[in-house]
Structures are given as structure tokens and as C-alpha cells.
């Protein structure tokens, strides 16, 4: 069975395990939705007082918020395994079990922790999207819809890559992995607003160093018809950086495994 088919086989097994406890599953889903929708509510409350932030309206910000949340939620559901690599596998020595199988460890980890309850988070993003569309009443063609989908894809790849980096860190230390949250959750928190509300250095950081903005800011700004200082075609292709980043992350993961096998458990 090839890698792709094996992934879905694993996911099936994992889902059955999660569905064994439907109440727990639903509670998790609801609490994810509740926690995140409250944050969106907070944004709405802010706009009740301030009405605009650097020229962006609530409806426009809601679109950025929605695209970012959905991308993050999708990545979260797919890459949850990397969160627990440290405590569940490396610290306990169970990582050996994965290495004893003739398959890539990354495949086994992501497949086995496929988290369906992330749908709660996705739902919150969809609510924000509906609000945005209802308020903007845009006339988007198929091109813009594709652009926004491509934006979500690039964002998902990027957040997935960041999660992979976090998992890789656990080969060196099983503590202090929190710091990776600065990039994953922090990145999400930052990208929920259009990046031009931040100072130049921060915006550049999120465009050129950890290219969250390439996937989640440039294409969306393009869709909203705002000029962001780069040609339209650049903005349209920018989400590819998310995939490039993912490629790098997986290479670094390989280095992490090499380190693990050198130091033992």
C-alpha cells in the first residue's frame, strides 16, 4: 500500500477511535468553536468603538480574519500529531516504535492524530466568512474565488510547516516547545488583521521571513481591490511560498530524526 493510501487508512482508524466517545468529541468541537468565536466577537466589539483601522472596515477585516482562521484550522486538524511528538513519542521512547516500521515517521504521526474536532475552528472561520460576504456584498468572479481558495491552501501549507518545525524541536528538547506557539498561534493572531496595520519591520518579517503574509495577506488584499505595493501577479502567486516553506520544514524534520537516532531515548 503506497504512502497516500496508507495515510487515509490511518485516518480511518484514528477517526473511529475519536468517534468512540461521541460526547467528548462534540464537547471538544463546541469548545473550539466557542473559544474562537468569542475572539471574533472581540474584534466586532472593537469595531463598534473604532469603526475603522488604518482605512479597513469591519467587513474587510472579517475577510482577512476568515481566510486566516480557516487556513489555520485546516492545518491544525492535519498536523496535530506534531504537537504531541514530544510528550507522547520522544519522551516516552515510543518514537522508536515509529522508526521500526518501514515508513516515514512524519506520515505516521500526521495520519494518526488527524483531529476531526478542528471542524469547530473551521466553523468559526466560515461564520466570519459569511459575515464578511454579507457585509461586503462583493461581485467576485470565479477567478477571485480561486484566488481565495489558493490563499487558504498556501496558508494551510505554511501553518502545517510551522507545526512540523515545532515537532522537530522536540528532538532536541521535550520542554519549551511553547515557543513555537509564537509562530503558529501568534502568526494566526497577527494575520487575522491586514498586515499593513503593523509597522514596516513586522510586516516585512511576516512577508519575507515567515511568509504568512504571502499566503494570507497579499492575495486577499488583491481580492479586495486594495493596492499593496506589489504587482497583481506577484500577489496571486505568493501562496506558493507556503508550499516552499513546507518543503524546507520536512527537510529539517529529517535532520531532527538523524539527531534523535544519534542521541537515543
Amino acid at each position, binding site marked *: 500500500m503506497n504512502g497516500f493510501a496508507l495515510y487515509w487508512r490511518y485516518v480511518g482508524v484514528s477517526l473511529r477511535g475519536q468517534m468512540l466517545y461521541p*460526547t*467528548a468529541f462534540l*464537547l*471538544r468541537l*463546541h*469548545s473550539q468553536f*466557542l*473559544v*474562537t*468565536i*468569542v*475572539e471574533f*466577537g*472581540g474584534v466586532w*466589539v*472593537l469595531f*463598534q*468603538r*473604532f469603526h475603522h*483601522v*488604518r482605512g479597513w472596515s469591519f467587513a474587510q477585516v472579517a475577510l482577512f480574519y476568515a481566510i486566516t482562521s480557516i487556513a489555520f484550522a485546516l492545518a491544525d486538524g492535519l498536523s496535530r500529531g506534531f504537537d504531541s511528538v514530544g510528550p507522547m513519542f520522544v519522551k516516552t521512547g515510543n518514537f522508536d516504535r515509529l522508526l521500526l516500521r518501514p515508513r516515514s515517521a512524519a506520515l505516521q504521526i500526521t495520519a494518526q492524530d488527524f483531529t476531526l474536532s478542528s471542524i469547530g475552528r473551521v466553523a468559526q472561520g466560515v461564520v466570519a466568512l459569511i459575515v464578511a460576504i454579507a457585509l461586503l456584498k462583493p461581485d467576485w468572479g470565479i477567478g477571485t474565488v480561486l484566488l481565495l481558495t489558493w490563499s487558504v491552501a498556501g496558508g494551510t501549507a505554511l501553518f502545517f510547516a510551522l507545526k512540523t518545525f515545532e515537532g522537530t524541536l522536540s528532538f532536541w*528538547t521535550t*520542554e*519549551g*516547545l*511553547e*515557543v513555537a*506557539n*509564537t509562530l503558529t*498561534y*501568534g502568526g494566526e*493572531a*497577527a494575520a487575522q*488583521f491586514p498586515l499593513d*496595520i*503593523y*509597522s514596516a519591520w*513586522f510586516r516585512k518579517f511576516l512577508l519575507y521571513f515567515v511568509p504568512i503574509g504571502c499566503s494570507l495577506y497579499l492575495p486577499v488584499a488583491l481580492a479586495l481591490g486594495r493596492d499593496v505595493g506589489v504587482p497583481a501577479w506577484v500577489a496571486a502567486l505568493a501562496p506558493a511560498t507556503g508550499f516552499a516553506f513546507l518543503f524546507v520544514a520536512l527537510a529539517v524534520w529529517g535532520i531532527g530524526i538523524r539527531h534523535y537516532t544519534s542521541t537515543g531515548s
Partner: protein
Amino acid sequence: MNALPYLSILRARFMLMLQYRTAAWAGVATQFWFGAIRVMTLAAFYEGAGKQPLNLAQVVTYIWLGQAFLAMLPWAADAEIAAAVESGNVGYERLRPIDTYLLWFARALAWRVANTSLRAGPVFMLAAVLLPLTQMHAWAWRMPASGLSAALFVVSITLTAILSSAITVLLNIVVTALKTQRVVGFSMGLVNLFSGLVIPLALFPNWAQGALLWQPFAGLADIPYRLYFGALSGGMAMQGLAAQALWIVLLVLLGRWWLDRVMARIDMQGS
């Protein structure tokens, strides 16, 4: 009453925290970063905005206080107790010659104090000292409005620790009564919102201000922080402290009563 067992619980908690030194540093870095992002976001909103119930300096300070004292909040039931419940061993808690409520309370309080003291200092160094040094005055954590504010803040944050512990013990009791910890995650969104950590309560619509002050979670963050920069003063300050104290009394009484009932049932059934 012998305080020794409770002191040793506190000491044990400190030791545990210090073992994970990388985690300690990482936690500080993460919180500083989150604080910075929120500060930058709020700063953008305040640009060109008119007069607001809190000015930017106060909101910025509020955010930093929130990050520094994040560990104060009742984020979850005590993990060890939750594990004991799920494995059915919670009855063994009764074997110890200490009052169970006080024991759980001491654990919760120790958790809060130890975790916070490790984070608050470094976050303060970074946000209150380093930022002004690097010319980013606008985003720095400001000093208290006055000596009186500082004193009121200290009193209030102490009440916060106690209030948060009381809530945590209630979470423990819920977990014990329901025999599962899965329900607890639900409450997080609400606690977050009503404590003021998502948006400072003062920035909510004006008509809601009265009710917001008197709900139990306001005392977890909003009240002490506003006392710090003097947004609550005089009569309002007294109201804030009174609200905290009131909820402490109510929640402790509720907790004791409920725990007795839950434990009596466990004693009889052998969990």
C-alpha cells in the same frame, strides 16, 4: 492549623517548575510575543481615534499585565486530580489527614503563585524596562498611576489569586462529580471574554459596564489591572475590591458544600 503541608506543596511546585528551565524561558518568550502582537493591533486601532474610556497607554499596560499574570487564571482543573478521577483513584485523596478542600485549594494557589512568579518578572523586564530602552516608549508597560494605585493593585491581585484558586477547585469538583475532565474546556472561552483578556471590559458598550463589573470573572484580570492605572478609583475602586471579595466568599462556600456531597458519595461507593 498547621501550615507546613501547604508550604511544602508550594515548594514542591516551585521545584517542579524550575526543573523545566527551557520551558520557563520559552513561556516568557511566547507571552511577550503575544503581548506584542496585541499591543501593535490595538495601537493601530487607536490611531486617529477620539477619546475612549481607556487611553492607549492604559490599554497597552493592560495587555502587558494580562500577559504577565496569565498563569493566574483558572485555565483548567488540576491535571493530577483529573487523572486520579479518570483512573478511579480519587478516593485515595481521602486517605490523607488533611481537609480535601483545603488541600485542593492549596494546590491551586501554589500552582498560580509559582507559575506566575516565574513569568511575571521576566515579562516585566522585557515590557517595562527593555521596550523603553529601545525607544519603543509607546508600547511599554507603564508604572502604576500612584502609590495608592500600586497598593490597591497588590491587594486586588492577591484577591485574584484566591478567587482563581476557588474557581479551580470548583472545576476540580465538577471533574470529580462528572468523572471526566472533558467538559472543562468549554468554560475557557467565557472566562477569557468576561475576565477582560480578549477586550478590556471598559471597551465594551457603555450600557454593559455595570453588569460586567459585578460578574465573577471580572476579578480575574480586569479589576486589578484597572486599579493599577487608576481607571477605577475612589468609590469604584472599593466596589471592585468588594466584588472580588464577594465572589470569593460565594464560590468558596459553594465549593465546600458541593465537595462534601461529592466526597460523601465517593466514600460510600468506594469510587
